[in-house]
């Protein structure tokens, strides 16, 4: 059975919405032109491909299926649990939990423990892991070779899948198409090759080793990092969706109607932006907690509560961040309303709403697109900082912010537990870097100042 949380609905709505928008844009010559430029840029294509892979993971993680939990005894199976498609795909990572910390590719725990061996003596040793490297008999000698063999196997599977996929694509479309317009598609397919190789190697290793180690309660860090992708995406994207309608409506109105409308809107955003954002967010999160405490029947599972908090965080971030774009749009609209074509439209008696829709909005769209892609990475980074002061996502939500937050304590350990922080760093860095590079290309393509 399919079940959906509020943010899942938002994610799907968003994916369909953007697909629709992309399709519509591609029909219009003038709107598609800057995008063509984006697709001609190598950096643009690479970063977009990476972003799409992240989005795919996010979508997989948002498709939830309720199923009966399997228990060893079998008879209590009417207890249901909800898993996302991603959870099901990552089942070995999700289920294979150790007792506590273990290093990447380790076969023992990270700390010594009191154990009793077969002859009944107590020993102070590093105990073997239950899952990681459990298939090895002589772990110290065998491990290196085993890892290499598994990586090689994974790489070849990755290559094979990629070849099959490419052949299929060639088969469906025409080979000539691939040869004629080489740049964009070729870069894309090469990026895909790299991604497939990485995924292949990871999936060959993951069932046997904890590639990025395990955390304090023995959960696989790779699993946590992958699960955090959805949180990052939701925060980055959903916030923009909340912010856009407010910013566009108010910005255009202020610039176009001027007079008291302008005054009121200016007052609104000056007031709002002069209050420290932290305070607004903290207040909103506290309010959400009060609301949930008063209506426990609405939020029966921990997922519901966490999801509500995530949604609310996005909303409040949206409310605090619309002021910048609004200011920008107002200034631009002020300029545009004095343009000849607007003046002539007005002289012809075209309605004000029509002017806004037909003449003003399309001409500020580039600003909107640029702000959107630029804000995305900032929001993903902001999540980490908010989690640090405990006003971010719910502590039970997988997020990079929460990972960094816990790893602060781990950094003080000796020997240092570095892998949680590193994992969060790698994943976050990849996503934000891709987003930033993409934003750069988009900005170059859309900004009229660079269109020389």
């Amino acid at each position, binding site marked *: 059975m399919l079940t959906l949380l509020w943010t899942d609905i938002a994610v799907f709505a968003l994916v369909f919405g953007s697909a629709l928008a992309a399709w519509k844009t591609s029909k219009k010559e003038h709107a598609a032109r800057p995008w063509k430029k984006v697709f001609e840029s190598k950096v643009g294509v690479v970063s977009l491909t990476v972003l799409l892979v992240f989005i795919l993971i996010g979508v997989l993680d948002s498709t939830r299926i309720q199923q009966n939990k399997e228990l060893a005894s079998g008879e209590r199976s009417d207890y249901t649990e909800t898993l996302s498609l991603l959870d099901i795909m990552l089942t070995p990572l999700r289920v294979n939990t150790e007792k506590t910390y273990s290093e990447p590719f380790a076969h023992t725990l990270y700390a010594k423990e009191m154990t009793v061996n077969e002859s009944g003596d107590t020993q102070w040793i590093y105990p073997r892991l239950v899952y990681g490297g459990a298939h090895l008999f002589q772990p110290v000698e065998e491990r290196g070779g085993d890892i290499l063999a598994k990586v090689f196997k994974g790489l070849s599977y990755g290559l094979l899948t990629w070849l099959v996929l490419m052949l299929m694509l060639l088969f469906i479309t025409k080979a000539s198409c691939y040869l004629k317009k080489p740049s964009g598609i070729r870069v894309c397919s090469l990026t895909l090759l790299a991604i497939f190789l990485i995924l292949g190697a990871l999936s060959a290793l993951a069932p046997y080793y904890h590639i990025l180690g395990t955390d304090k309660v023995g959960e696989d860090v790779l699993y946590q990092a992958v699960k955090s992708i959805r949180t990052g995406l939701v925060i980055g994207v959903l916030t923009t969706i909340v912010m856009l309608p407010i910013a566009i409506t108010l910005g255009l109105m202020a610039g176009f109607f001027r007079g008291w409308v302008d005054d009121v809107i200016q007052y609104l955003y000056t007031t709002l932006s*002069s209050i420290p954002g932290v305070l607004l967010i903290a*207040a909103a999160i506290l309010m959400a907690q009060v609301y949930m405490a008063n209506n426990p029947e609405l939020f029966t599972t921990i997922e519901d509560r966490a999801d509500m908090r995530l949604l609310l965080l996005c909303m409040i971030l949206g409310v605090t961040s619309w002021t910048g774009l609004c200011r920008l749009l107002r200034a631009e609209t002020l300029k545009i309303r004095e343009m000849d074509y607007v003046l002539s439209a007005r002289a012809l008696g075209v309605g004000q709403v029509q002017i806004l829709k037909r003449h003003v909005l399309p001409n500020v769209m580039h600003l909107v697109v640029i702000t959107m892609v630029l804000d995305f990475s900032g929001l993903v980074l902001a999540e980490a900082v908010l989690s640090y002061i405990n006003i971010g996502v719910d502590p039970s939500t997988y997020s990079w912010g929460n990972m960094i937050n816990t790893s602060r304590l781990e950094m003080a350990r000796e020997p240092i537990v570095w892998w949680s922080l590193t994992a969060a760093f790698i994943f976050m860095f990849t996503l934000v870097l891709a987003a930033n590079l993409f934003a750069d290309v988009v900005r170059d393509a859309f900004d009229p100042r660079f269109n020389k």
Partner: protein
Amino acid sequence: MINYIIRRLLYVLPVLLGVNILTFVLFFVVNTPDDMARMQLGDKHVSQAAVDNWKQQRGYDLPLLWNDGALGFEQASKTIFFKKSMSLFAFDLGISDNGRDIVADISQRMWPSLAIAIPSLIFGVLTNITFALLLIFYRSTFLEFGGLFICIALMSISGLFYIIAGQYFIGKLLALTPISGYAPGLDAFRFIILPVLIGVVGGLGSGVRWYRTLFLEESAKDYVRTAKAKGLSDLQVLFKHVLKNAMIPILTGIVVILPLLFMGSLITESFFGIPGLGSYTIDAISSQDFAIVRSMVFLGSFLYIIGLLLTDISYTLVDPRVRLD
């Protein structure tokens, strides 16, 4: 000009009133005076009588926004909002809910905040400008592409990583600076060097890119071509002419953030144990000290608006063509 400034200053009043109401509402939607009293009185042996006593002593026993029991103007004035929030307009910040004078606390805590913020700003701007100019000088060489990529990479790293890594490597492994702490006066030097370094490096990516766009626009102008045609070297043109002419947007960009420097940085201060204003606010939020929260928000928004005003004025000062109506 004078008229404009006066008008803008008057405009501050409704904004501050709005800020005040918003803070008040946000705070009391989630907290009640009872909660505040219990927070201050602690866990053990707290009776309702003690709570009522606390509220009465601190003046939180009045209605929040509207007093039905009073007459005339007192309906609005005999309320927590009026008594607590309106006195802010006279810059009477009063006494915090745990009984300390807020002005005294702020005047003590602003120095550490400034000690971090000002050097970070100065060194940040200097390095950003230098690197931005160098990037332009080396336009379309591999140095530029490498530099730009590094900038984007630096931007893509969360600020928390810089702090954690900085403390770990420089403070712990190399033992070059104290890990955290603060001392007033000249001794502060040892303590602020690491936060300032991290602040500069953390802001490098976005800063360099921002200045680069600025200089790019500037160097596309005609006078640059003329100067080059006259036989000046690229370096001379960049560092003398372009920089001089780009001073206006640079300065105005700095002016707007100047007043806010005073508010301190939340994350840096709490990581480095620096007793500044950033940590003051967040501590107050978590301990539900309404007196401090409202004072800091008030001060913050006041400074923000002053910053906006200063920017407008600085535009007219550096560029006489701009006129404020």
